[in-house]
């Protein structure tokens, strides 16, 4: 014990006092406004969906670990809230009209297949919440995307409430002029009178949570802002430099939730700041481009796709070793 000071090991040498559990609890707190607003807008059914999703995520992690012959006590001691966050995000990203089994299946798939089979927290190749959402989208396409339910609070600005047939983005992408001009940007921001997923509808709640995370230094607010800005600007470019498209394209769909809470996952982002900038710019381009090309909401698909490029980015954008000076000699050595 006395020569603890002189022990040497590989990096990281300086450890922050913050644990995974503390970070994940902070993310849960940051998502609380979105959960509350989702319940206010869509009723108790929304809360039930979220609760089931979270329960399923935690239960599948426990069952997996029990099958792997871990004792119940050690599971409880090591439980970080990552599966709680995954379940929360999946619950927030389904519509209130979806049957109850959808988030249950999606969470179980996300935890068992995407996270635990790859080795647990911090070892997953792609973001579990995003993949769970895509699993639900592919598996239950009909119930996930049809019959969007309008929220309880009617539109503040527009006179008539929004149609329940399609979310604004679907209308916008498919050039349904009847849907698009009826929704003001303020309504999109507040989520009033806009049909959509439980957590994605009220952007203000999400932004409040994101600001909390940024102030608490859980996430670097710059990166998701780059993502949102690039996605918006690229949509404007693809729409023929029609700048009225900028706000609707970033305020509709799952872009805000995806950018601030899903894309910023530590495990599935590059290690360096330059790598992160590249990653989020590419993410914005892919999102806007695929949105235009497919006509559906693709934020989760874009994140999944770019997650797979993270190891590649990490390979090419590496930290400069401390004290490294790039001289002519090293260059000659490389060439020779």
């Amino acid at each position: 014990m006395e020569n603890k000071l002189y022990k040497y090991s590989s990096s990281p040498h300086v450890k922050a006092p913050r644990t995974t559990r503390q970070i994940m609890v902070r993310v849960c707190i940051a998502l609380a406004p979105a959960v509350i607003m989702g319940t206010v807008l869509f009723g108790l059914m929304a809360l039930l969906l979220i609760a089931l999703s979270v329960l399923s995520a935690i239960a599948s992690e426990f069952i997996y670990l029990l099958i792997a012959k871990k004792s119940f006590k050690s599971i409880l001691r090591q439980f970080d809230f990552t599966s709680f966050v995954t379940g929360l995000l999946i619950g927030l990203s389904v519509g209130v009209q979806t049957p109850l089994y959808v988030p249950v299946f999606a969470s179980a798939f996300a935890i068992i297949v995407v996270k635990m089979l790859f080795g647990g927290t911090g070892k997953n190749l792609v973001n579990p919440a995003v993949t769970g959402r895509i699993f639900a989208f592919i598996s239950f396409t009909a119930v996930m995307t049809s019959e969007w339910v309008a929220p309880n609070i009617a539109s503040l600005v527009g006179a008539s409430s929004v149609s329940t047939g399609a979310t604004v983005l679907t209308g916008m992408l498919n050039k349904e002029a009847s849907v698009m001009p009826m929704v003001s940007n303020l309504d999109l921001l507040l989520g009033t009178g806009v049909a959509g997923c439980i957590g994605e509808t009220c952007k203000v709640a999400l932004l409040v949570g994101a600001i909390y995370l940024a102030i608490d230094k859980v996430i670097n607010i710059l990166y998701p802002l780059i993502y949102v800005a690039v996605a918006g600007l690229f949509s404007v470019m693809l729409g023929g430099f029609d700048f009225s498209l900028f706000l609707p394209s970033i305020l509709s769909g799952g872009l805000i939730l995806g950018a601030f809470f899903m894309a910023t996952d530590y495990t599935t982002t590059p290690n360096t700041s330059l790598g992160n900038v590249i990653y989020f710019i590419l993410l914005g381009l892919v999102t806007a481009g695929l949105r235009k090309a497919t006509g559906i909401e693709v934020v989760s698909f874009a994140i999944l796709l770019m997650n797979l490029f993270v190891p590649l980015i990490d390979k090419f954008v590496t930290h400069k070793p401390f004290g490294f000076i790039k001289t002519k000699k090293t260059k000659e050595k490389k060439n020779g």
Partner: protein
Amino acid sequence: MKNSFKKVALGGVITSNPTLKLVLGTCPTLALTTAAMNGLGMGAAVTFVLICSNLLISLLRKVIPNQVRIPAFVLIIATFVTIVRLALDKFLPPIYESLGLYLPLIVVNCIILGRAESFASKNGVGWSILDGLFMGIGFTLALTLMGAVREFLGYGTLFNVQIMNFQIGFFSSSAGAFFTYAVFIAVFSLVSSLISNKRKRKAFAKTQTPVQDCAKEVE
């Protein structure tokens, strides 16, 4: 290397199962297992081609020059694939249509060429036919089982009979094909390693018992 019926039969179906152990012929495995019936049809077609090509290649194994053996094998296989295609088109048009492009692709199926190269060109006619039969059975079993699982989860049906109304579309998509295949390989190797471990332990126990007996006798 001596052949025995047990060795060839077990080899084809279990110990070197072409789909789950050798991971050969993955293209039809991934694409055609959306339904159990497809798997069965594909398996039957491949089994027929495998038996016939093994038979012919084994007969001609001393005639075919070593340098051009691969083109010769492909030519023989292509002959039988054409026979299967024409026969299916005439007598079972629904299966012919559901297999589609993958039927002519049997020509380049690694399983058939692999067996021709590693077994039929080195062994007698009888063994080659047996090997073709059991390799075909192993392939058919794997494809049919995978097809059944994917059809049941993806469409709620089994051999086109509606069983439940609940569907998980993921399993009928191509991503689900990779996932199901991976799970099958994992479960298969888990079970086979468990069995071989047990066998090893038994063999170990057998070698141990006489020693203990001796010890008792000494006492």
